[in-house]
């Protein structure tokens, strides 16, 4: 089977999950006890506003019609109106989406650049002092809450030594990078324990694999051995770990964006929950679901590109 068929098959597999997410998000808002309109607008809302909202949400329609309305709205990109911002949910989300995506992307890149070499060093020299230090630091940062780490980094590098900005996203490529450095380092430090530990274990396994031993008998230099026969296979392990932890990463971005006052989706969902802005919460939940599914799909495709056994049926 070639790549196109594989891609088509994976996309088809994803559709029911997407449908499930839409259904769950729809149901969740209607699970709240009480009159949704009153909950959203507050106790002091006028009857007129309540009636308007009920019509807009279609709350007096039978439930399956409500669902139909909901789905068709989604296809039109209509996610409702934010109660807090009094603007289209879609607009607000689209403004903030790039921030979150950039943050997560930059953090993943940094994590890979930092953790993979460390894991390789630790795996190659098992038991040495490098290995011990790496593992000790991992255990330490594992117990540290991300928000505390981030704040301490802020204190050290934005207050005591004012090297980095305290908050905000910035404008322009380098400015944004500068603003995102401390947040990305925080996420890397939080992800590092899991990533390094699992990767190190995978690499140790790979280093003892028969194909590595055989490659040695071919007379390959250590450098070529690592580059071609260890890293390539280890990269697949990295990808798997990252893919599995993507949900965790999204959860982490919520906290980090709050700590560093980044105008992203994570901070938005927190403020929306506090403000009971249900249309917004709904919209963000959908977008998050969509993001996770897309990232999983991309991970699968990347994996298939790296490992020829996957597309072969």
């Amino acid at each position, binding site marked *: 089977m070639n790549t196109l068929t594989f891609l088509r098959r994976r996309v088809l597999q994803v559709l029911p999950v997407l449908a499930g997410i839409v259904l769950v998000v729809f149901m969740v808002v209607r699970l709240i006890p009480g009159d949704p309109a009153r909950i959203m607008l507050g106790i002091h809302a006028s009857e007129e506003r309540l009636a308007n909202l009920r019509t807009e949400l279609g709350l007096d329609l039978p439930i399956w019609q409500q669902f139909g309305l909901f789905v068709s709205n989604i296809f039109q990109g209509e996610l409702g109106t934010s109660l807090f911002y009094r603007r289209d949910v879609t607009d607000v989300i689209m403004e903030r989406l790039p921030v979150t995506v950039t943050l997560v992307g930059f953090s993943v890149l940094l994590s890979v650049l930092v953790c993979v070499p460390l894991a390789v060093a630790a795996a190659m020299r098992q038991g040495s002092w490098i290995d011990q230090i790496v593992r000790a630091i991992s255990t330490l940062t594992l117990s540290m809450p991300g928000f505390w780490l981030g704040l301490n980094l802020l204190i050290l590098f934005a207050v005591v030594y004012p090297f980095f900005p305290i908050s905000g996203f910035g404008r322009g490529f380098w400015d944004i990078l500068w603003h995102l450095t401390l947040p990305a380092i925080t996420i890397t430090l939080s992800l590092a324990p899991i990533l390094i530990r699992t990767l190190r274990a995978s690499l140790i396994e790979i280093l003892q*694999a*028969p*194909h590595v*031993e*055989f*490659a*040695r*008998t*071919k*007379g*390959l*230099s*250590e450098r*070529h051995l690592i580059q*071609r*026969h260890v890293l*390539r*296979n280890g990269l697949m392990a990295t990808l798997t770990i990252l893919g599995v932890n993507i949900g965790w990463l999204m959860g982490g971005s919520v906290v980090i964006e709050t700590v560093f006052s980044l105008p992203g989706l994570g901070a938005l969902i927190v403020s929306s929950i506090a403000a009971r802005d249900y249309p917004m919460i709904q919209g963000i939940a959908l977008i998050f679901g969509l993001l996770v599914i897309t990232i999983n799909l991309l991970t699968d495709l990347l994996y298939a590109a*790296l*490992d*020829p*056994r996957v597309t*072969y049926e």
Partner: protein
Amino acid sequence: MAILDVHNLTTQIPTARGNLTVVDDVSFSVEQGECFGLVGESGSGKSMTVKSILGLVPAPGRVTAGSVHHGGHDLTKLPGPAMAAIRGRTIATIVQDAVSALNPVYRIGRQIAEPMLEHGLVRSRAEGRSRAIALMAKVGIPAPEKRVDDYPHQFSGGMCQRVVIATALSCDPGLILADEPTTALDVTIQDQILKLLVSLQHDLGLSLLLVTHDMGVVAQTCQRVAVMYAGQIVELVRTEDLFRKPRHPYTAGLLNCVPRLDGPARRLTPIPGAPPDLAAPPSGCRFHPRCPLAIDLCRSGTPALSEVAPGHFSRCIRQDALTADLWETADA
């Protein structure tokens, strides 16, 4: 002229229970164009001997004594890069599990050509690829031009072993170390691969060090053979002499375990007992606890490998008392 000269090779592995001497004072040589067999049970040290020759003993084990002469160098004294220059180039290796030996993410043409590129025998991937096709044809892989771009999972076990052999041949080595090349294969494929190895050896004038536990393989392919037990060589002689008249009780025991189609049917008797713990081997002759011929001197002395007949070496001081029915059980 010997292409490989092993003198008093000793390899030890430190463990929590003490130092395991997995290769103990092993000496033999492989002549040019010869097929030399190294035979023994699992744990006898034969694979470790091969690893020691290649300088690939897994840490924390290491070669602690002896020398391995090849191409004018002592391999045990060579630094890493110099040793890597020899591996795959003048000494090639064939492994037992060919399927696992191939990296699943690379095409096999590239894996066959890899040693050639590494040692500078070809200058480009394209050149390597065409040489790989030729090698695949030589080892009997059908339609090599089509299959050179396939991945290992698309090959059967026997085909993978042919790929491994092709890889070993790629740099025109003088010596091939084959560690149980047929053990993981079906019997019919085993036969094919063995015949392939023998014919390649003849055609290319290769020397072959064949490690195996199967006496039948030895009989089919090797001119001379060394029998290993508990890390030591206990007997070393021409193959036909070994089968005709073994001069060590262990060898006799091994031969006794092989069912024969000629002659009357008889009970197969395994050698009683188990191989010794290498951290605390028995005193004197390592085999004495299991040997029907053992006497006090076997326990106290240190029997050395000596020439007990022309070209026939044995470590047994009682080998003249060896009879054909040594291992027959009472009610056989």
